[in-house]
């Protein structure tokens, strides 16, 4: 049985829970940190978190699937978040999305290995739309030419 237990253990997740005092109300904070460390939330991580915080896996599943931020699968190498809320639509976000889909050969919110386009709803840059975010960096007045440059610059940082 020891080997079975070992397979569900995620040491990093265990540490993160501990740093949060194993408090169940800090679940969302814990999930954020584990996802930041691994890029996604693996089954092993979720089992470990359930054990550490003493809540059921069903409850955690409920939380993970409720919030748009949490991913249960490994993401693409680069995720480009494009705002499609009203203020950005008013200055051409839909056109930008259509051009980005053609250029990056992928559809909004489709799974992707290299570059994923993800819809987001307001980045708080509503006077300088269309707004885009890559790796927590915010960009304003983005057109397709600028998007190509930004995307390339972020690739260089990997």
């Amino acid at each position: 049985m020891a080997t079975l237990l070992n397979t569900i253990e995620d040491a990093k997740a265990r540490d993160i829970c501990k740093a949060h005092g194993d408090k169940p109300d800090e679940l969302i904070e814990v999930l954020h940190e584990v996802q930041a460390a691994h890029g996604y939330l693996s089954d092993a991580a979720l089992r470990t978190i359930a054990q550490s915080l003493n809540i059921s896996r069903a409850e955690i599943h409920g939380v993970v699937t409720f919030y748009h931020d949490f991913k249960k699968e490994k993401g693409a190498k680069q995720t480009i978040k494009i705002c499609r809320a009203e203020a950005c639509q008013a200055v051409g976000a839909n056109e930008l999305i259509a051009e980005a889909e053609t250029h990056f050969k992928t559809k909004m919110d489709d799974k992707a290995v290299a570059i994923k386009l993800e819809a987001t709803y307001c980045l708080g840059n509503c006077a300088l739309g269309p707004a885009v975010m890559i790796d927590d960096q915010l960009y304003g007045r983005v057109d397709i030419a600028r998007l190509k440059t930004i995307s390339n610059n972020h690739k260089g940082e990997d």
Partner: protein
Amino acid sequence: MRVFVPCDAAALSMGADEVAAAIAIAAPNAEIIRNGSRGMLWLEPLVEVETDKGRVAYGPVTAGDVAGLVKDGMLDGKDHDLCHGPTEDMDYLKNQERLTFARVGIIDPLSLDDYKAHGGVKGLEKALKIGAQKIVDEVKESGLRGRGGAGFPTGIKWQTALAQEETQKYLCANADEGDSGTFADRMLMEGDPFSLIEGMVIGGLGIGADTGYIYIRSEYPHAIRTMRKAIEIWDRADLFGRNEDGSPRFDLQIRVGAGAYICGEESSMLESIEGKRGEVKVKPPIPAISGLFNKPTIVNNVLTLASVPYIMANGAKAYADFGQGRSMGTQPFQLAGDIARGGLVEKAFGVTMNELLNDFGGGTRSGRAIKAVQAGGPLGGFVAPADFDMAMGYESMAERGAMMGHGGLVVFNDQTNMGSMARYAMEFCEIESCGKCTPCRIGAVRGKETIDKIMAGEEQGKNLEVLEDLCDLMETASLCAMGGLTPMPVRSALKQFPEDFLGTAPEDSSKQAAE
């Protein structure tokens, strides 16, 4: 010599970091201060230089402009194509009434000394002297209402929490600013974080809470970073005393959202702070009686709390002297979408929409005519130009079928199809509904489908009836404002721009199907 380059996310989105780096190279002796944004976002990055005639503004500056600007005497405040003269004399700023945003863009956001030098902490000192009931009385008299959108009188809310006999109470700042067209909370947290902290400490004293949470949406990584640092600095400075175990007397924590719009609704936000799914709860009980962890809890918007230090320091009357009718004080309005001079305008209630859009905003950025303005976020109605004379206030807007919300105005030009915007309103509700109540969860899906049918010319008369019926149901039977107000933009678009729904339709769709 001091040079100011904003660290506000909007300024960064236009290359402020690169500009700061370029200035450091071109002018190695300059002391570069990373301030918040002045709110003139079309000029970002807006660089300011301290001179003997005050701070002089240059913008929008790109990294490529810097060497030339320095050569042409920017550091001495000399004239240039990008120069706007002394910042304080610029019409956009001069014509505002900045109370809540008095320090934003002026101070170094993370310098407590700068904060104090510009009037910070005075409100807290007064609050400590007068005690809980008088704090609440002062807020009541100021007429301050919830700036998150609902506009409930803050003092009355606080009184309810103060009256609870529980020893454990909580104060939560709602920084889940999800409405498109709004960014005032973000700007305040990035530009003057201590004012939110001070407002929360005063609120804690007022209602008897020793623990506070700031719930910030994950889409605001810069604001999260600034607030975390600000809390650390505030705690270290020990302005408010410590408990016997050495912990701060008012324990302040940040909780980061996870991309759910609905968590801006207070009961849903409290669930999320407890680490649960952000599902809306039935009221009563109201949170002021039983909220976070079933304890009395006050949830206030960032702008509400950040207005409290001014009210404490200057007295309720000084605040209430601004505004009109039952909308007292000032509102930080946000101009967004297709607007030439987008940004933050703090004005007393009573300013007209026209003044905001044209005198401040300068009309559309595209140069096209304005077709409609969405006021109050995704759940607010569309206002057509005929109504732009409306005074901005909770009641005066409601009378004209519009909503103050969080003070955002999103401008759409004449190329916009309002039928598509109505469809988007339903689609957004479908994506963001928490799923707890049926009218919202299913109504939004059916609403989207029905608008699609209408716009495709399918049995328009019948489908319009279905849409009206659906809107009635969502309005009256939804648990919270998400489902309850989504019909507002839909109906206002349909009423004012029916041709956008019906116009492009083929005359007889049954014929087409037969072909």
